[in-house]
């Protein structure tokens, strides 16, 4: 087209005289043949996978069914749930304290919290668990008293730190470091104007946190916290190194005895999937509760 062309006289005339009427015409949508090809290929692959899962005798679904709800397995699932619960509860309780230490104005509290988080994020969980398990080797007795001074009362570590409590302690201390950062992130995400408004209204400090800051921080804490709970839940399988009868350990014990490795791993897998699903559903409802008044 040339820039100096004459105005399109013909079209302009048509525009002025009568406009074309498209309303009677049939609309033909765009076809996507390659999308259909991709659907067919994917469907075949999925069908093959399902076929392999169901028909391959190696999966031994009958053995799976035999063991899935036996007493031993159910007991192991219960221990796994307990480890997750206590690890999460203690971990987040300590994490909240650490988060507010890092947010405080005291340089000492800040650096203690920072160092804690640095240390426990640096040490692999499995190494830390073995440390706790061998605490008796390091410290024979625990004294409560003045540092470097006299003690008031003391414990034998052997009686204090059993395998189960060592595991809970290890998981909780590990979890606290991550929880602290998640909580801190959530608190920082709350608009500064909210605290200012609360302060201007004279609302007491603790009430500001509980009523104004935390409910809003929860919105950004929850998705990350749910991630952490789920990963801790599956992470409890690491505790099997301490010979605690949680799900993964018990499964190993059974297949060590009867040699049916694959179906028993499936028993553990399906339990992990079921419980993770329950947690995800719980997450949905808790998040919905804390999204009151929000537009997205």
């Amino acid at each position: 087209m040339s820039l100096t062309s004459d105005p399109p006289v013909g079209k302009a005339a048509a525009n002025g005289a009568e406009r074309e009427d498209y309303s009677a015409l049939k609309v033909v949508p765009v076809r996507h043949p390659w999308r259909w090809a991709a659907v067919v290929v994917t469907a075949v692959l999925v069908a093959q996978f399902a076929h392999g899962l169901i028909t391959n005798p190696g999966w031994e679904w009958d053995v799976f069914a035999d063991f899935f709800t036996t007493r031993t397995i159910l007991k192991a699932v219960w221990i796994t749930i307990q480890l997750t619960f206590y690890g999460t509860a203690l971990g987040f309780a300590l994490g909240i304290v650490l988060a507010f230490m890092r947010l405080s104005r005291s340089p000492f509290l800040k650096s203690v919290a920072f160092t804690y988080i640095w240390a426990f994020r640096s040490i692999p969980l499995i190494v830390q668990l073995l440390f706790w398990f061998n605490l008796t080797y390091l410290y024979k007795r625990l004294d409560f008293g003045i540092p470097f001074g006299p003690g008031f009362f003391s414990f034998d570590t052997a009686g204090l730190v059993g395998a189960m409590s060592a595991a809970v302690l290890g998981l909780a201390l590990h979890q606290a470091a991550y929880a602290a950062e998640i909580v801190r992130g959530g608190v920082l995400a709350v608009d500064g104007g909210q605290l200012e408004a609360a302060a201007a209204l004279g609302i007491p400090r603790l009430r500001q946190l509980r009523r104004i800051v935390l409910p809003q921080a929860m919105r950004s804490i929850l998705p990350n916290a749910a991630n952490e709970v789920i990963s801790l839940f599956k992470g409890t399988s690491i505790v099997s190194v301490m010979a605690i009868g949680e799900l993964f350990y018990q499964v190993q014990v059974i297949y060590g005895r009867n040699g049916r490795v694959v179906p028993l791993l499936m028993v553990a897998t399906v339990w992990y999937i079921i419980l993770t699903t329950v947690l995800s559903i719980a997450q949905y409802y808790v998040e919905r509760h804390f999204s009151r008044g929000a537009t997205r």
Partner: protein
Amino acid sequence: MTAMVDIRSVHKSFGSLEVLRGIDLEVRSGEVAVVLGPSGSGKSTLLRAINHLEKVDSGWISVAGSLVGYRRQGDRLYELREREILKQRTRIGFVFQNFNLFPHLTVLENIVEAPVSALRRPRKEAVRAAEALLARVGLADKAAAYPRQLSGGQQQRVAIARALALEPELLLFDEPTSALDPELVGEVLDVIKDLAHQGTTMIVVTHEIGFAREVADTVVFMDDGRIVERGAPAEVLDAPRHERTKAFLSKVL
């Protein structure tokens, strides 16, 4: 009349930037003072200092006879604990430019929160008072709404009701209409005018010259951390004596 607010030689710096360079101001009980001035002149900092949201470096501020942020004992001034400062603030209402309503609480809960938690009023009584305040700002039907469901003008009216719920002796407004769409400014100014006519002591930082002319007893013009000129609206707005006041007014009028 007695001085409700008494500000004496107040200085405040942020780092090397001195934002308040010796402010002296007195606001009488029942007076409406409007503070004008270019942005960066220290108006908002001064307002926030009155509420102790900003701590001053030197000088002092007293509200209704008590020093803000300090307690005098003999010849010493003791810095107040946070709890005591919070208690002082319940006597001063503050309205923010960006409303700062609590988004996760309903309109009613926003208003009830401070009377219940800071003044320990019985909840039932606070709810009744809040409903009356909502009616007063024309939002009686919005009690159950969440702030984000309201327009900016409605949110600011809720914020005013929230500040009034503490029955403050003094109201501070920090550019209450600057974040609003032009057609919503009027409804908020009407509420403030209403309060002014009822004899509420208030200090309003604003850019609404028309509002200043209509409502103010005193217009204070600030520039560069100092009060350049103060007087009745007719003096300061129509016959400014200072060059900087003239220059500012010629730009905004």
